[in-house]
Every structure is written in C-alpha cells, then in structure tokens.
C-alpha cells in the first residue's frame, strides 16, 4: 500500500513517514499543496493523508482539485481546528475521515485501515473471532477461554469484541469510547480503565496466559504474547 502525506510541519511529516513505514506502508510526503497535487495526480497512491493548514492553499481546496481531476483514492483529513463546520465541509469536499491534532498513532492507523477498507470491503464477515485460546461467537454473543464460557455483561462482550477485532493492534481509550460506547468524550477520570480491569479479571484468570495488555501512555492491546 502506498500513501501520500501532505503536511507542512516537518517534524510531524517526519514522524508520520517513519511510523507509517514501520506499519508497513510505502510513504511519499509533500510539504505544500502544489507538490502534493503533482504527486497525487500521478495516480499511484492508495490513500492520501492531508493536513488542512497548508502554507500555499487550503487543504480542502487541494482535496477538491484532486477529486475534480478524477482521483478516487480515499482521503484522511488532519486538522488542528475542531469546529463542526470544518469537519462537515471536509467530508463534503471529498474527505473520507477526519482526525484532529494531536492524535494517537494507533487512532491514525485505525482510521487509515478503515478508509482503505471502504475502498475494498472484505469479502465476508466472520461470525467467529479467535485469538489464541479465546473464541468469540458474535451471533450467540458468547465468549470462551479454552473450554470455559466467560460470564460477561453485554458491555464487556462489546469491549472484548472490539479488542479482538483489533488483536495485535493498540487501541486508545478514545477509540474504545468511540467504538464501544459510540461517544466522543474525553473523561477526566479512569472510567475506561476500570472497564478494562474488570474485563481482564474475567478473561485473564490466574494461571492463564495474559491476553489483554496495557501499553502505558497509549492504550490497550489484545495479543497472545
């Protein structure tokens, strides 16, 4: 997968290039709208990551120009502003998703996967999720660790399902709130952590290999290491 990053702030551009490369993408970068447009029109990129505050023109105009010239690659918008109006206009101009700065790398990657998946949707949706000896039956809303059925509340099941779908990838608290509770809030207290502790106490019993891990400063990950 080849990405184009259009971002004028060099440190941000650098860390985007580095972290996206580490995540397995090929990355081209541009520091202004003119260079970005020239690169975008080559037609070799699978997705664009475009910052709205570019020095020579507005990111929204860049998106509109790319769309007008037939580019169909999905666009992930980055912006420091957080007005509703701008978000709406961004999506209207042809952006596919919107991320406000500062953002967690995990969230950027999740949204990127999401916009890429919209272009090529998966062939079928499995009703079973499996990670090590953890099995989730999405139809019966039942979770098993080995042979044992876990007694989970509906909320805990949704949380575990979300972690399982992202097995091996870090998810942030914001992402958990957004996907499991469908809320964009930023609690000042550790409400999400308490849910994770409770879930962990049921999933990772003593003597079992722990599956749910805390990544300090970032979030949580479910992986069988």
């Amino acid at each position: 997968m080849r990405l184009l990053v259009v971002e004028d702030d060099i440190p941000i551009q650098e860390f985007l290039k580095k972290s996206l490369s580490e995540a397995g993408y090929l990355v081209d970068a541009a520091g202004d709208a003119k260079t970005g447009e020239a690169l975008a029109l080559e037609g070799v990129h699978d997705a664009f990551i475009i910052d709205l505050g570019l020095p020579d023109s507005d990111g929204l105009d860049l998106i509109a120009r790319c769309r007008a010239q037939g580019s169909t690659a999905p666009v992930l918008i980055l912006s420091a502003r957080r007005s509703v109006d701008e978000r709406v206009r961004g999506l209207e101009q042809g952006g596919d998703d919107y991320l406000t700065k500062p953002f967690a790398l995990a969230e950027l990657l999740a949204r990127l996967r999401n916009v890429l998946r919209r272009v090529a949707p998966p062939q079928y949706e499995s009703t079973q999720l499996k990670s090590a000896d953890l099995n989730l039956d999405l139809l019966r809303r039942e979770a098993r660790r080995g042979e044992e059925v876990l007694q989970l509340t509906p909320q805990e099941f949704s949380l575990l399902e979300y972690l399982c779908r992202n097995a091996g990838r870090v998810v942030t608290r914001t992402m958990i709130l957004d996907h499991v509770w469908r809320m964009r809030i930023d609690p000042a207290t550790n409400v999400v952590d308490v849910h994770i502790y409770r879930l962990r106490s049921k999933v990772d019993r003593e003597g079992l290999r722990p599956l749910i891990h805390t990544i300090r400063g970032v979030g949580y990950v479910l992986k069988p290491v």
Partner: protein
Amino acid sequence: MFSSLSRPPRATAAWRISTWTTLAFAFGTALAFCIVYFLVAKGIRERSDTWLKGEVEVLAEVSASAPRDSLYDRIVGEVAELASQEVGAGRNSQGKRLNSLFFLQVNSNGQAPLWVGPGAEDSFLTALRQTHLDPGVPEWISVKGWAPAFRVVVLRRGHGGTIYLGLSDLSALRLLHRLVYRFVWIWVGMVAFGFFISYLSARRMLRRVEAIAETVARIGSDDLGSRVPEGPISDEISRLSQTFNRMLDRVQASVNQLRAVTGAVAHDLKTPVTSIRGRLELALSDGENGRWREPVAESIEDLDKLAQLLNTTLDLAEAEAGALQLDREPVDLSDVVSQLANLYLPAMNDRHHELSVALEPRLVVQGDLSLINRTVANLLDNEIAHLPQGCRIEIRLCRQGEATELVIQDNGPGFPPELISHAFERFVKGKHSSGHGLGLAFVDAVVQAHGGAVAIGDRPGGGALIRLSLPVTTLQTT
C-alpha cells in the same frame, strides 16, 4: 413562537393599536358632532326667538291701535291666526301643521279676554302662571298635553294688560332628531370601518416587525450569515431592520475574529504538541528503551491532558462569546444519561459509591450530541473526583413542563460554601481539587448555548446537588 397564527388576535399589538386609535377617533367625531348639534340647535332657537319677539311687538301694536269694540277680538285674532300660519311652514307629509302657536292677552285684572291657539286656554294659563317671565326674553314653558315645550315671550302694556306669544316648534325638533339619528348610523359605520382599516394596516406593519423578530431569533451562533429583510420602502421599520443588520454585521465580524483567533491558537499550539506526541510514541514503540519507557509514557499522558485543557479552553472562549457552533440534532437525553451511567458505573463501584438512576424515557432535546455527552460526562467525572469513598449518588431525569431536568445529587461533603456563588466561573475550583477548574464553566456555557440553565446547591440532608435543565423538543406522537 412568533407566528401570529398561534396567538388570538386580541393578544396582538395590532389589535391594541387599532382599538385605541378607533376609540380616540370615535370620541373625537362624537365630540365634533355634539358641537355642531349644539350650534344648529342654538341657531334654530335664535331664529324663532327673533321671530317671536318681532311678532309679539306687531301684535301689541295691533292690539294697542285697534279700537276696543266688538271687532277688537276679531282683528287681533286674525293677526294672530295669520302669524301662526306664517310659522306653520313646517308641515308633515299629510299636510298637517307641525308647529303650534298661541296668543294670549290678559287684562290687568287677570282675565283672559283674548285667546288664539290650539285647544283650551286653561292648561296654558296654569302653566304661564307657574312661571315667572321677564318681558321680551323668550323662555321655555312646558304645557301639559303638549310636546315639545313652548317658547314663550311676554310683553306688558300699561293699560292693555299682558300679551303672551308661544311657539312649539315641532319641525325644528324633528330636524334635530333626524340629525342625531343619521349621525349615529353614519358614526357607527365610520367607527367600524376605521377600526377595520387601522387593524389591517397595523397588522401589516407589525407583520414586518414580527418577521424581523423571527429572523433575529433564528440567527444564533450557528447561522450568523442571515439578515433581516429590509423592504423596499424606507420607513421606521426598514430603519429598524437596517439597524439590526448593521448590528449583526458587527456581531458576525467579532465572532469571525474570535474564531480566527481560536483557530490560530489551536493551530500554533497543537502543531508542536502533535509532533512531540508523535516522536514520543515512536520512541515508545522502539523496543530497546527500558529505562525511558515510564517517563515517556507519562509525558504522553500529560500531553493528552494539555490538549484536552486546550480544547476545553478554546471551546469555552467560543461558548462564552456565543460563537460555539452547535451541530443540532434531536438528542434522546434519556439515552445519553443511561449510556453514560453505564460507562461510569464500574468506576463508581470501584470507589464503593452506590449509584441509583431514575430516568423518564424518551426525553428528546434539540442539541449537539457530542457537547451534551461531554457535559454530562463532566458532571459524572466531578462526582468521582470529589467524593470520598462510599457515597450514594443519585441521577434523576424527568420532564418539568417545557424543560427536561437532570438532577445529580450525592450525600458527600457538598460544595464548599465559598465556591457556590461563583462555581461557574473559569478556573474556580475547590482547594483539594486536582482538576483545571474549567469543568463547571464549560457545563454552564454549553447548557446556556442550548438555551438551558444549570444551578448548583446543597442537597437537603447534606451533599451536593446539580440541577441542569434544557428546553425539551415537542415530540411528534408516533
């Protein structure tokens, strides 16, 4: 709420204005008529008085010069009869004379030797004796059995006794009656027509005022671009519209300026935060930094708090200036509160709090879902942050008339008394609070932007109480 259709016409200003102008008009025209009536009546009376005085002189002359013989009565009687025919010009449609005239001569010994007039003289004599008359000054005398009253003039002759001449002018009275009758009909018609016209024109004028009020009410922070229609005619109402529009121009300019400033601040502060955060995260993902993991993770968490503080500060600045953009949609408040209660319940249980939730279902407000979520979350965060372990927290959501009321109360220590009066100001916080002191200010600003109100106080029996009310949306019953 501004639609004239929803109000009875009697409650409108147009109704009041036209009622008052019509009353003034009715009173003025009635007064003018009274003056005219009075002048006409006076003119008629003066004319008949002049005639009476002249005629009584003539009769006195005739009675003085006529020889006192057997023909005297006939001569004077003829003259009086002629006079009565002269004033009898007023006849009704049947040719019957409307006016009555009498002539009476009384001797110095009180006898009445000469009487010319309708009917018998007795009742006239009685009426005349009861009234004192000055010679040559006509007076009203009502005679039993006769209407209208007679205008009588008296003339005393030294030896010839006293001469009375009286006129009952029914035709003049009928004329005046007709005047009054016609005036009343025309007056009623005029007043009704005047009321109708003034109501219509006042309503047309005030519709324009109402249109201005509607537009101005609609122009919130979401939509500062619309303007009040100014209309083609340049009158007071157009000037009102123009003034409103100039004011809106200025408001829009300052709101845009504020948004530009907050946008610039957001950009300038968040760009370095983003790159620092990104590099720290990269460092964290680099597996070989055991010693640095902890401080790097803490720095990331601090940066997130900084970004949150920055967002809240900027939102608050915009909200307090009325420039907060609301993405309004129907929000089921019952749903929001119940979801948030579910989210916060484990964290509350962790601190041994007991949570009881009583929600009236399907209470819908027109609002910004994300801001309302943050507002309620903020209040619940406060409960967790400020209560000692093992308290009872109660959340109640119910409808109070036109508002939805959310009450959150606990049996903790309550608000510090010195805080209660200015708890909604920025950076005001309790001594032991670890927060940034923007929480309640933010809650207040968001609720006000939604047209609601927040109040804090003491719960009866001890503890804190927060009461938040938002205007409820009228639900279409489905």
